[in-house]
């Protein structure tokens, strides 16, 4: 077991790789009642075409990673929620573009709950009957998202940007695509992506690191895994340019929703390089569109944006894009104004004092995030899967320069890479 102390954060992290390849991290939080644990596989909705060393290349139906997540909760003896409930644990799971995460939080019976979490995820149980039953439930989940304008406008933007890359496919799939899923498909995906060497277990809270690590070590020693071959994720080449400049969909809304963003031209970064670009871009976006900027205030005074106006940057080694926007009475006027003002900033660059303030804000936001065990576990895992360390964010922020941020502004904010998504009432 390795011990890593982060003095500036007053945190100590414990780390060990199990014999079967599972990576385990324990972060004790003295004084905390709760323990929060996530068991994650680097497998999400984008992994729909792959080849495991020694096996055939496969393409699987859209939405299968999420479907698999639902089905993991069923065990031969029944629903796993009941077992967690008996030990007072609140359990859940979620699927994103590139990971699936199973989790619980509890204040008692931590060892039992931890074993339950590990065991149910490592014990798939799919039958023709339970697979069919789930189609009705997930069908309703898909319908629920169809009624949600924020989801529709967000996904519309990704669909407009990406032509080939599966990030543009809805995480839950469609009613049609999940209709074709069989238990055999689920086992194929399970066997490819749920090998311990593709997974990460994170435990944070009022726990003893030594005891926790021992428990996990002996749990894993009881199970036998063959060596996993290399997983090759197959992505057909994605063109640099956006698939569509503009995409509109219709749904009852009080005001149109308008989201726009830029598709990153250069992908393929990983590790610290990617972390640095990610943080620099987020800082740059905040300097452009944050609530204290002149642009934000002008647009707000002119009734072109509301409190819903926000921005984000989403990046992985294979795809990266920004998303900016919110409710507006006039999407075209908003876009025109933004283009005009952003071009002025591109010509002048950001100011030193604005840059320093934005940097402080980001550092404070990061430290506040560390109050939450949930956020730590989620973010840490996400960073690890992308080859970066969450606890090394502060020094990166401290070393980013104004020149870098200005350069990022020129690179990322390229109007040729712009896509727009709009939701309006029918």
């Amino acid at each position, binding site marked *: 077991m390795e011990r890593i102390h982060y003095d500036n954060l007053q945190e100590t992290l414990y780390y060990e790789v199990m014999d079967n390849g599972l990576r385990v991290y324990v972060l004790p939080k003295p004084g905390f009642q709760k323990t929060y644990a996530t068991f994650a596989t680097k497998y999400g909705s984008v992994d729909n075409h792959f080849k495991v060393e020694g096996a055939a290349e496969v393409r699987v139906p859209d939405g299968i990673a999420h479907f698999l997540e639902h089905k993991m909760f069923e065990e031969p003896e029944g629903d796993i*929620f009941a077992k967690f409930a008996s030990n007072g644990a609140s359990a859940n799971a979620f699927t994103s573009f590139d990971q699936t995460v199973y989790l619980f939080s509890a204040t008692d019976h931590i060892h039992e709950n931890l074993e339950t979490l590990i065991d149910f995820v490592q014990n798939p149980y799919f039958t023709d009957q339970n697979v069919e039953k789930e189609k009705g439930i997930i069908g309703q989940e898909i319908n629920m998202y169809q009624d949600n304008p924020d989801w529709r406008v967000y996904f519309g933007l990704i669909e407009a940007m990406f032509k080939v890359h599966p990030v543009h496919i809805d995480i839950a799939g469609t009613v049609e695509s999940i209709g074709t899923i069989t238990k055999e498909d689920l086992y194929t995906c399970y066997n490819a992506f749920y090998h311990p060497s593709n997974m990460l277990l994170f435990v944070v809270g009022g726990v003893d690191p030594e005891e926790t690590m021992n428990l996990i070590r002996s749990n894993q020693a009881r199970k036998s895994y063959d060596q996993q071959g290399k997983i090759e994720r197959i992505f057909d080449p994605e063109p640099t340019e956006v698939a569509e400049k503009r995409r509109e969909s219709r749904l009852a809304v009080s005001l149109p929703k308008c989201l726009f963003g830029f598709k990153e031209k250069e992908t393929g970064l990983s590790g610290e390089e990617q972390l640095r670009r990610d943080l620099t871009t987020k800082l740059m976006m905040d300097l452009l569109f944050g609530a204290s900027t002149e642009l934000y205030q002008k647009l707000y005074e002119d009734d072109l944006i509301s409190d819903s106006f926000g921005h984000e940057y989403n990046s992985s080694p294979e795809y990266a894009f920004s998303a900016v926007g919110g409710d507006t009475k006039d999407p075209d006027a908003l876009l025109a104004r933004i283009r005009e003002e952003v071009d002025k900033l591109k010509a002048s660059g950001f100011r030193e004092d604005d840059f320093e*303030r934005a940097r402080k804000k980001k550092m404070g936001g990061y430290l506040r995030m560390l109050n939450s065990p949930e956020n730590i576990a989620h973010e840490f895992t996400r960073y690890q899967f992308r080859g970066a360390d969450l606890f090394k964010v502060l020094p990166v922020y401290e070393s980013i320069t104004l020149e870098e941020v200005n350069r990022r502004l020129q690179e990322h904010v390229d109007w040729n890479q712009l896509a727009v998504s709009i939701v309006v009432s029918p």
Partner: protein
Amino acid sequence: MTKTEFEHGTAGGMRIHVLPTRRFKTFAISLYAGSPLAEDTVTTTALTPFVLRRGTVSYPETRAFRERLEQLYGAGFGFDIYKRGDYQIVHFRMDTINDSFVNSPESLLSSSFAFLGEAFTEPVLENGAFRKEYVQTERDTVRKKLESIVNDKIRYAAERCIEVMCKDEPYRLHPLGERKDLEGITPDGLYQAYRKWLDESVLDLYVVGDTTLDEVKKLVEEHFKLDRTQTKDYKPSVTRAAARDTQTVIEQLDINQGKLNMGLRSTITYGDDEYAAALLYNGILGGYPHSKLFVNVREKASLAYYASSRYDGLKGIATIQSGIEVQNFDKAVDIIRKQLDDMAQGAITDIEMSQTKAMIRNVIKEMQDSAFEMIAYDFNRQLSGKERTPDELLDQVDRMSADDVKQAASAFSLDTIYFLKGQKEE
């Protein structure tokens, strides 16, 4: 055992509650201003914090106001407006980094109090009233927020259900006020309403972090310019049983999935000895994934993705919510009614009892890891006048029998069934 009890005092006409602790990386500050829900004040009270966040005497321009927050390492500042019992609560929050994590030349706690105190008591004025421009813009903002409720169909249906159910009492009012009243609000009228609200509302100020009651009292006296000497108290709301047979209301909107909501009246509220039994009633019925609603509506009948219940002990209302296919309305209502009947007849297993107790126990204990949740729990005591520490509540929940829950079930009666469905004819 970690210390979780607040120290209480008064300063400047406010009740002050402080929990000194070093567990968090931040200072959490909450200021609650409560006033009775009433038609003639609900809209001005709702609009007030929106105008207050635009500028103060020291930072009259909104940009400068927001830049100040960024200088405080991106201190979190925001407000929520909601109903608690028959009160309208305006809740300001600040979340500031503890200085020890950053090289700050100023005390961030003291600076945060200076900021919050001024935002609350010293807004920028022109001609002895609020700035006209700010009032006009924020009227639009609140109007847009009220109009946008319909965008989130799940929330819209939940709020319509409450409106329909409570149409003859103040609780029907939306915490953001009434759209029709916004137009007539003037800068002067709003300022007068604000002064009255400052004088008459019940004020509670909370701090969780590395500080003391004495330090907070001094900061309050220094930075809050209030003309009050006396603190004020909440009066518990009066509950009512369903006076009529269950009403069914069906409405239409352009949506894919039907939203089914039900409202139950309960004569048990937070201050009652039966409160623990009511918590168990809700937990067994629909609070968790092992509960009757989730198991029967979702897992067994495959009708929905979500099916749950919530209990509001301050108002004495429980609600049920689920998203279903429109043609499954009767089927879903029958299944839900069957669960309510089972509860009333005491069809509650030992396992349901023990699992639900374990889950409630977990919720109460987990709360103690979050500064703002601890604050919210203690605030219930101010609202209800009932002192019940987390440990006492844990103990009361533990002592409940299935018979106690059956007794509590007789205090719940189904008042309203509300269904929102699509406009297409099936």
